[in-house]
């Protein structure tokens, strides 16, 4: 059910952007009001979501341990997968956020001869999702060349790295290739891997389509149907420095750019209300971001409350005779 519905949503947004590219009235709205609405909803939405998480405590320290604990001094602790210090937990998080360490462990289970289960290394999901996420980040940072004047020096640096192979003119960015490959892989496995197909919801296909839409329109503009980049930059800088945007400037923006822009705004709006909040959630995951020092350091549950217990006195009361008969010491000999 998921794919058709998300395709429909995607096409509606594509259509809106397309029409806006040709209708001056809509173009004005999409070019002047939409970005502010999107930016505001994005920031406020994410903050609200994270604050909502933050308002719930972490009552117990429930780290998932993936290696040897700290115990006797002569047993080697796995300090990253089973950290006992805040520093170790920080290292674990860093590897998790930057390199998707847990996903790197991924295996594939299959039946052999219809009777044996065998496990094989399966790093494709890790590779393509890492490629996708890193590319997305680098592409976002590269776009600072359209966002600010003067351009920060890291942008030039990133562009040089990204265009390292100097193939083509304009130089083909490695991240452009990787993000398309990554998204395609992530999308296709949702359709062809029966397990993943079953669990996929419209809200799984939609963001993939949306980001694919952004990437494809971007690639089209860079390599094929070129747009007036000076006008684009004047436009974005005007938005980001709260300067009015003239209709003559809007007129210079190509429909393809308006589609690209509409997709981006949609993504910003959609972000805080979807699974995409895993961006922030990963940092708060209590099985990963805590040290496994439970027996060393007391963890306090802020809502700890008293529960009815069966006290020793009540216990002895019930079994005293039998205990005395069996010669087990008791508190009250009667």
């Amino acid at each position, binding site marked *: 059910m998921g794919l058709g519905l998300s395709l429909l949503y995607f096409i509606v947004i594509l259509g809106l952007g397309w029409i806006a590219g040709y209708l001056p009235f809509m173009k004005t709205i999409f070019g002047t009001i939409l970005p502010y609405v999107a930016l505001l909803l994005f920031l406020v939405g994410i903050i609200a979501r994270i604050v909502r998480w933050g308002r*719930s405590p972490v009552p117990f320290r429930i780290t998932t341990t993936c290696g040897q604990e700290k115990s006797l001094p002569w047993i080697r602790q796995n300090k990253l997968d089973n950290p006992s210090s805040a520093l170790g937990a920080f290292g674990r998080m860093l590897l998790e956020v930057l390199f998707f360490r847990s996903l790197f462990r991924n295996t594939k289970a299959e039946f052999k001869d219809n009777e044996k289960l065998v496990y094989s290394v399966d790093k494709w999901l890790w590779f393509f999702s890492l490629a996708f996420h890193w590319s997305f980040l680098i592409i976002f940072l590269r776009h600072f060349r359209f966002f*600010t004047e003067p351009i920060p020096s890291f942008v030039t640096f990133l562009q040089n790295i990204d265009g390292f192979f100097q193939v083509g003119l304009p130089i083909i960015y490695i991240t452009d290739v990787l993000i398309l490959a990554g998204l395609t892989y992530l999308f296709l496995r949702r359709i062809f891997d029966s397990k993943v197909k079953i669990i996929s919801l419209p809200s799984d296909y939609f963001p993939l389509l949306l980001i694919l839409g952004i990437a494809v329109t971007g690639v089209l503009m860079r390599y094929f149907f070129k747009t007036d980049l000076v006008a684009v930059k004047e436009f974005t800088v005007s938005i980001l420095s709260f300067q009015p945007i003239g209709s003559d400037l809007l007129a210079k923006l190509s429909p393809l750019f308006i589609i690209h822009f509409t997709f981006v705004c949609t993504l910003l709006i959609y972000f805080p209300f979807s699974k995409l909040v895993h961006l922030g959630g990963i940092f708060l995951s209590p099985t990963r971001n805590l040290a496994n020092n439970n027996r060393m350091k007391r963890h306090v549950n802020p809502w700890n409350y008293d529960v009815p217990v069966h006290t020793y006195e009540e216990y002895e009361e019930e079994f005293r005779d039998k205990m005395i008969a069996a010669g087990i010491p008791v508190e009250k000999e009667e």
Partner: protein
Amino acid sequence: MKLYDGWKIILGLIVFVGFFTLPIWLNLSSAQSKVKPQLVYPKDAMQCVENKDYMNHYHMDLLNFWRDSVVRMNVRYIVRNGTVLTHNGEKLEMSLTLACLKCHSNKEQFCDQCHNYLDVKPYCWDCHVQPKGGLK
């Protein structure tokens, strides 16, 4: 309203918001954000080989095509309607330095205007010699 692990979460949020609004702060803190490219077009020059709109969007494709045409196909001269274009009596080659720069002789006021504005650093000049500045 109690926020558990408050300072860590707030710090994280500040970093996040700061990061995403960085362009805004950079633009607001710089007067240069209003500066736009000012191109100086050559006077008394011949008409360009393609129209202005095309050159604005696709000059890199044209140059790329020229490059492959000259180096790989050994086809050198710019032909329009079956005849080789000339400039001051000389046949015009498909060449950045021998054609484009004949008219657009001031790179700083022409090429660099947009290229710097958009952080485009073509590596043409690593080998091809600038008309005025000479070798870097």
